[in-house]
């Protein structure tokens, strides 16, 4: 019970609140060889943006390395000596940004922020004083996710994992359990048809995962303010298709494995890990090595995540993802066919 409802909800909460890449309050140290009005003004500009938090002022170049090695400082800003005077007399002064690039993404984003702040300060200054530079204004528009929230990226993934987990993993384990305990044989010799037995085993999980799906959707809409731009009916229909596919996959796993532990390991390694890693849930597929990109093509979750994002965030209709839908549909038929074949062979023995 805890796993069926607690885990998914905990996951959404964790992903929604804690797992973000947004950068705020990065620790910064400043090495100011000049200490004049201009450098103080730039420093002030930097600190009044909510991106940076001053850790301390450094006094010599040697301290930079130590500051990084201590751990928290992510960026050191170095002003050359006589900064203001050089700026005025020679029209050029030099500021150096040194970044802790162990995390390359944080480093590039901080670099861009810093440059942006300094440049905007300089252009303001120049407008005040003299000559007219040519400037290009940039109008930024963040499509589908104007506040750049991470939840938008993660919720479709969590829904997918959850449907996979509850439907495929739980069915495969529960059927394998009946096999292990020997109760499956008892059911099979009863006058109930095998197909009915399977359907009877599968339907409760289907209902459960559907309830879970709705709980997550409600949570993402009301707690995280995530939109459902497209048609809700279409969303539910596609989810149902994906659900049937996962169930078929679960049955297939259970026909292949003999014990609970086997079924668990199989679904863990064959389903859960690839679903998290290779489906584009957290890590964009386009940046992976080619081999992994090819492998990701056979992950049903990859296609379903595309569908979910299209409906929920882009709000487009089925014309835009009929291909993905078709792929899932064929996977579904393939798994059902294969498990029927496996199942009948077992019965003949």
């Amino acid at each position, binding site marked *: 019970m805890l796993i069926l409802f607690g885990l998914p909800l905990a996951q959404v909460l964790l992903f929604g609140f804690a797992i973000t*890449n947004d950068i705020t309050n990065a620790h910064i140290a400043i090495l100011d060889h000049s200490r004049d009005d201009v450098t103080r003004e730039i420093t002030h500009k930097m600190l009044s943006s909510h991106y940076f938090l001053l850790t301390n002022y450094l006094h010599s170049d040697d301290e930079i390395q130590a500051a990084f090695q201590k751990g928290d400082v992510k960026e050191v800003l170095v002003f050359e000596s006589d900064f203001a005077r050089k700026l005025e007399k020679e029209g050029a002064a030099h500021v150096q940004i040194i970044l802790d690039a162990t995390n*390359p993404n944080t480093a590039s984003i901080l670099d861009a922020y810093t440059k942006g702040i300094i440049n905007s300060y300089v252009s303001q200054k120049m407008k005040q004083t003299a000559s007219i530079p040519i*400037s290009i204004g940039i109008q930024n528009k963040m499509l589908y996710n104007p506040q750049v929230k991470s939840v938008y990226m993660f919720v479709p993934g969590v829904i997918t994992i959850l449907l996979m987990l509850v439907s495929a993993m739980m069915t495969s384990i529960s059927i394998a359990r009946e096999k292990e305990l020997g109760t499956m044989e008892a059911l099979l010799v009863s006058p109930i048809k095998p197909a009915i037995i399977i359907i009877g085993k599968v339907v409760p999980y289907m209902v459960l995962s559907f309830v879970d799906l709705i709980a997550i959707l409600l949570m993402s809409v009301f707690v995280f303010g995530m939109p459902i731009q497209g048609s809700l009916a279409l969303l539910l229909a596609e989810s149902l298709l994906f659900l049937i596919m996962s169930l078929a996959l679960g049955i297939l796993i259970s026909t292949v494995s003999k014990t609970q532990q086997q079924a668990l390991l199989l679904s863990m390694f064959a389903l859960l890990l690839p679903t998290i890693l290779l489906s584009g849930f957290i890590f964009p597929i386009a940046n992976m090595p080619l081999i992994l990109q090819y492998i990701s093509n056979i992950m049903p979750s990859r296609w379903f995540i595309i569908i979910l994002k299209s409906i929920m965030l882009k709000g487009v209709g089925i014309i835009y993802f009929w291909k993905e839908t078709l792929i899932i549909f064929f996977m579904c038929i393939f798994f059902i066919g294969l498990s029927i074949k496996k199942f009948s062979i077992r019965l003949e023995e």
Partner: protein
Amino acid sequence: MRTIAYILQKEFIQIFRDKSLLPIIFIVPVLQLLVLSYAATFEINNIRFVVVDHDHSTESRQLIDKFAGSVFYTDVGQPSNYKAANQAIKRGVADQILVIEAGFEKHLLINHHATIQLITNAINGSAASLMNAYAISIINDFNNEIIIQKYPGQFKGMPVRITSSFWYNPELNYITYMVPGILVLLVTIIAMFLSSMNIVKEKEIGTIEQLNVTPISKFEFIAGKLIPFWIIAMVDLLIGLLLARFVFGIVVVGNTFLLLFVASVYLILVLGFGLLVSTLTQTMQQAMFISWFFLMIFILMSGLFTPIESMPVWAQQLNVINPVAYFIKINRMIMLKGSGFADIQWNFYIISIYAVLMLGFATLRYRKRA
């Protein structure tokens, strides 16, 4: 001491006899390191962009060339209107749109100010911020070039020259960042999995009763259980370090012995945690779910995938009890930045205290009783 030696012998025989356990102990971690390191990347190097150029001027073409020439960008088409470009994003074949209005060149050269529009698919928020940062820096470069071109002599670019240097990872390689973290993940999973399954397995099979009637003391029992797993996890860590060196070309900048020393204390902590779970549960399935639950939260919050500083304050405070977070931080500091003991000492003390506590609880909880 003799007694401990016997228990050790028993544990090792038991581990190496189980043929299904061996691949999990030695092959899975290697695969994990290889696949995870390559797959877990937020690096962006292939931004598919479309340009809607209403201006068709020399300047606009130069700007477009600048984008196309960047290693980060791939030009996937120049549709004639905004609608078509928007379709490309909807269909998922483009990530970013650049719209250059008619009169761009004229505005730029006569009015000294022109505007362009940058539209980014922001469903993946972190990727979008990066794409945005790249685009803005390209446009700013372009801006400076024109200034130098049009006002030669008078203007030597922006008066404040900014240079950036990226320390410890100048090529901004994401794998360099991930490998130390994944190493921690891998030894943690192995140590946790082995130790949490262990006592409970003896309970399930019933062999714990036999151990209970022997004259082995509590401490000998726990030590005997702990040492084999500790050795296995250390071997795994060494294999991982070798892979990092020879497959990924990551040289440990700091002191390798310091790293191994911290790792040995950290492993005692994880093993203690696992044994505690094992003494508290009745069946293997219970033990498995409990350790998975904790591992998942520890790992997601550890800063392995997303930086801890980005998390809300309550999550950061929660991380005080997260052993994985400490060791990932230490490992990255030693391996990539070459931090010494003085830099990591506080983190190290916390791990040590934590280890003693966990081991103490596990020993306390384990009772010789039926």
